[in-house]
């Protein structure tokens, strides 16, 4: 008796319906009780409507130990597929916490590596939604093999396609290395949990009691560790952030980000009214950024960590650019261990994906202290110098106010091959601030004076007038021009236009050795 094809089609639809149930109704309810969406719902929310195509729906695990052959794990706990975001194709995988806790087994990893290979071959972004209890212990070393294959591909694809990790559940132990290797990590308050060793192990080994949230919750990674790049309060907000980020990025490293229609900055940000006259008083550098970018739209990255450095994406005349700026509002805008790491990695990201870098400079130098030195501020500070020097994308610098000593060099000076360096009249480009310099250079005059305090004030004033300005650097051609603040956007637009076909080559080498 031959079964008609129409029956076979019905059977297919029945099978699909069965597998799509995931871990079953109970597990789905538990997921909702934790305030989390299911894997499938997440994919549908993130991708454009009706654009998702799933693959490997019927993949099954093949482990036979520990009664595993009796267990049916639908899709082996992960959903992979392709779809579109903003009309352009992306690859996506989402771990399904309702199936065996989303634990990673060999076939589960195989599905993920399949979609990763796909995204690398076809040159499109990869989005990974992590929500997993970790390695499937019943599968033993095969789980580890699975993780290893994923990490290798993360590295292979690094700098070729944008890789985004969204942590929408636990991501612990070895599993957390995949997000660490990707470009951007998105976390959601009270839902994301990332740590290498969990609270139970810490309790056993150290006797310390700490909750999952305090150890590796979303806030911890956004404020303290710097492992997360974007923080959202709900999953929906997170998906909006992902779409926003993708609009600034090219789809792979052979392309440039899509240009949008140019828009003027919003009138409420008046560039001439932001920076105080007195260099001792701070301002929010993001107001300056918003006064020069299209529609005053600035997508800040790692907003809550190392806040003395501001990094993020904006558009100048429709072209996507990356910003690296000192933030005088926090710790006077100094460079330290964390802010150096933050800046250096972002510079390399922009360089890898053909995004021009605009640097706004206003820093008094590096943060002093034994704790900084012991933490290796030398090594970390060197990362910024390395990143800027090696970057071949158009590099534009605007020196707003202070640029003293090593900080002047590190923040994309002409010497690190910035393409255009502009300075505002308020710029102070000097080896150190007038107060410090006068104390050293005129020490004898001050000590021998009738009124040392008056002599000190006079010498500080002399030094300030002679050196705390942009004209000494301008006289040497170290900066290209001194500009009025109101001319900034116009000049940046022109500089980007003339740098559009920049083409330079570095000495032949496999790769340098950055101070990791």
């Amino acid at each position, binding site marked *: 008796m031959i079964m008609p094809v129409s029956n076979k089609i019905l059977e297919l639809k029945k099978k699909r319906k069965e597998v799509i149930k995931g871990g079953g109704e109970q597990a789905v309810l538990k997921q909702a009780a934790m305030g989390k969406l299911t894997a499938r719902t997440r994919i549908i929310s993130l991708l454009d409507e009706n654009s998702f195509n799933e693959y490997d729906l019927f993949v099954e695990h093949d482990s036979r130990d520990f009664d595993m052959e009796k267990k049916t794990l639908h899709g082996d706990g992960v959903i992979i597929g392709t779809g579109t975001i903003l009309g352009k194709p992306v690859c996506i995988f989402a771990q399904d916490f309702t199936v065996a806790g989303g634990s990673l087994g060999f076939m589960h990893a195989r599905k993920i590596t399949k979609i990763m290979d796909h995204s690398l071959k076809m040159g499109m972004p990869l989005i990974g939604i992590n929500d997993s209890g970790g390695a499937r212990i019943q599968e033993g070393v095969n789980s580890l093999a699975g993780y290893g294959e994923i990490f290798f591909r993360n590295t292979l694809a690094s700098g070729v396609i944008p890789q985004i990790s969204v942590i929408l559940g636990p991501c612990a132990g070895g599993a957390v290395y995949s997000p660490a290797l990707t470009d951007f990590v998105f976390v959601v308050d009270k839902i994301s949990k990332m740590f290498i060793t969990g609270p139970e192990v810490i309790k056993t*080994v*150290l*006797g*310390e009691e700490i909750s999952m949230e305090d150890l590796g919750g979303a*806030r911890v990674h*956004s*404020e*303290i560790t710097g492992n997360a790049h974007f*923080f959202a*309060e709900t999953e929906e907000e997170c998906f909006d952030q992902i779409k926003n980020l993708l609009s600034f990025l090219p789809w792979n490293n052979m392309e440039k980000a899509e240009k949008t229609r140019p828009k003027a900055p919003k009138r*409420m*940000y008046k560039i001439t009214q*932001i920076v*105080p006259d*007195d*260099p*001792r*008083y*701070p*301002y*929010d550098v*993001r*107001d300056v950024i*918003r006064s020069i970018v299209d529609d005053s739209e600035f997508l*800040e990255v790692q*907003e*809550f*960590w190392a*806040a*003395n450095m501001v990094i993020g994406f904006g558009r100048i005349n429709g072209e996507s650019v990356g910003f690296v700026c000192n933030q*005088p*509002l*926090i*710790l*006077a*805008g*100094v460079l330290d261990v*964390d802010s150096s790491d933050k800046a250096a990695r972002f510079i390399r990201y922009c360089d890898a994906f053909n995004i021009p870098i605009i640097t706004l400079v206003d820093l*008094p*130098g590096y*943060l*002093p*202290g*034994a*704790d900084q030195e012991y933490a290796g501020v030398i090594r970390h500070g060197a990362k910024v110098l390395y990143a800027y020097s090696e970057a071949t994308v158009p590099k534009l610098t605007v020196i707003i106010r202070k640029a*003293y000593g090593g900080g002047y060099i590190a923040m994309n000076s002409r010497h690190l091959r910035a393409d255009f360096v502009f300075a505002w009249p308020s710029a102070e480009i000097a080896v*150190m*601030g*007038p*107060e*410090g310099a*006068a*104390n050293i250079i005129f020490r004898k005059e001050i000590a021998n004076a009738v009124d040392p305090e008056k002599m000190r004030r006079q010498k500080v004033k002399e030094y300030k007038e002679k050196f705390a300005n942009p004209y000494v650097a301008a006289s040497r051609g170290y900066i290209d021009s001194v500009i009025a603040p109101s001319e900034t956007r116009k000049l940046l637009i022109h500089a980007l236009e003339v740098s559009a076909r920049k083409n330079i080559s570095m000495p032949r080498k496999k790769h340098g050795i950055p101070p990791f």
Partner: protein
Amino acid sequence: MKIHVSKTNVFRKMKGSKIKSSVMKNMVLGGRQYKTFFTPKFENRKPFTVPDPHLIYSAIPGKIMKILVKPGKKIRPGDTILIMDSMKMMNNIISLHGGIIKDVFVTKGEIIPKKHLIAELE
């Protein structure tokens, strides 16, 4: 002096965010005093203190298995003073300095954390 009020209004998302101190403080750099916010990490930093060579602290957490010294015992630099079960191994805990043990502050079977005071030399 009017302090600029940011229009960006961004520390908005993390209610109760600890990214900056609640008031602006003074920070002296290069002889100049800057008005700025501090970060919690900066405010909570441990000031540097010169380490006391007479005090022996633990470098790793663990469970004390065997104590090899007691008050009055003379030790040389590099001598093992106790054995600790830590990170799935038996570790010899050594003293970097020599001298005469004045006091031992741990007991057999005790679980101690990192930077815990173990012993004192005279």
